[in-house]
């Protein structure tokens, strides 16, 4: 069994960003994503969609380079004004080429 290491990028953001984030990670080279509904609290407290029930969590498996680009895009476009966090970690997959 051949395992490849890829990067799992997780983004937690207010739902108003949903379409934009999906568009952006695709543009930066992700071939897929998984999204779920979550709630949360951070340092920013209340946000616009609070009453509509929380945040979204986007997870995408990508190559290290794409992961870097996504993180940079998050920092440039979203960190200043939006309630959003992002983190990365390494995971092992089969079919490494699917996520490269």
């Amino acid at each position: 069994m051949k395992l490849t290491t890829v990067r799992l990028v997780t983004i937690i953001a207010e739902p108003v960003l949903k379409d934009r984030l999906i568009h952006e990670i695709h543009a930066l080279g992700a071939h897929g994503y998984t999204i779920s509904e979550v709630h949360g609290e951070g340092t920013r407290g209340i946000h616009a969609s609070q009453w509509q029930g929380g945040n979204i969590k986007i997870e995408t498996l990508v190559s290290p380079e794409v992961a870097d680009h996504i993180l940079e895009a998050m920092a440039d476009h979203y960190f200043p004004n939006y309630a959003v966090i992002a983190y990365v970690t390494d995971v092992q997959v089969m079919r490494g080429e699917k996520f490269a």
Partner: protein
Amino acid sequence: MDTIEIIRSNLLSPLVLAFILGVVATLIRSEVEIPESVIKAISVYLLFSIGLNGGVELAGTPISAFLLPALVTIALAIAVPTWCYLILRGLGRFDIPNAAGIAAHYGSVSSVTFVAGISFVERLPEGQNSFEAFIPALAALMEWGIIVALFIGRWRLGATQSQNSELGRVIRDTLTGRSVVLLLGGLLIGVIIGEQGFARIKPLYGDLFRGVLVFFLIEMGMLAGRQLRDFVKVGLFMAVFGTIMPLIHGMIGTSLGLLAGLSPNGAFILGVITASASYIDAPAAVRATFPQANPSIYLTSSLGITLPVNLIIGLPLYYEYARWLGAALGRMEYQ
């Protein structure tokens, strides 16, 4: 009924009592929970019902009767956010994004307040409870107020930022937003199916309407209650703004409605639409266009202050005013 009596009777209506129950439940931290998915479905139902009912009545209304009220509504959708913006900048000392963001809320429509206004009229005795059938279309027009406010803000900020594409999407989203599509879609379907087609679906879209609205208002009360806790954060200026502005807008909307030829009931509902502050479509649009504006301010004031003010004091006030002015204009007798 005199004014006090009207206020009292509104306060003791199932609608307002359900709203208060929701506020109280939140304040005592009770765990009454109406799941979000059900609330979303109910709000689709409420808007679609109003459209449908309007459409069924619409048959036979000459298009000319609609023109002047529509023009007045468009004028309000331009004027209200503009003057809100100026007040917020001038008196409130807000920066551009916050001023434009708040203006977008007060320039557009809160569905709940609108629906409660309709229900307020329908509850009146037979013969005094009719209003113009095209009213839902006016509510849809008033949604443009969001776009006007966003334009003002973008223009004052200068279009340097790269968010012009965002604005395009926001405009499209507002025009194809849920309330617009359901109100207009319902209206159209109502026109087509007429009384006869409506008869078989009336048990759902007619008879149940008020009861469902009461249920919905429990949740709205809980929502407003949660915002109330943030009350202190918004500051004195916004507290006053959120209380006074709807009252002023309500009177202006009612007056212009009467002048445009609406019946006192119709003018009252236009007043309610003008007075109400959006808390669903506007926050999303503002968040997308002016992320730097502080959501605590516009959410707390529209949901925590203006919504209860309108439901509790506003409705009876605008109604009394509409009757009084209607009588003064010779449109009806004021007893």
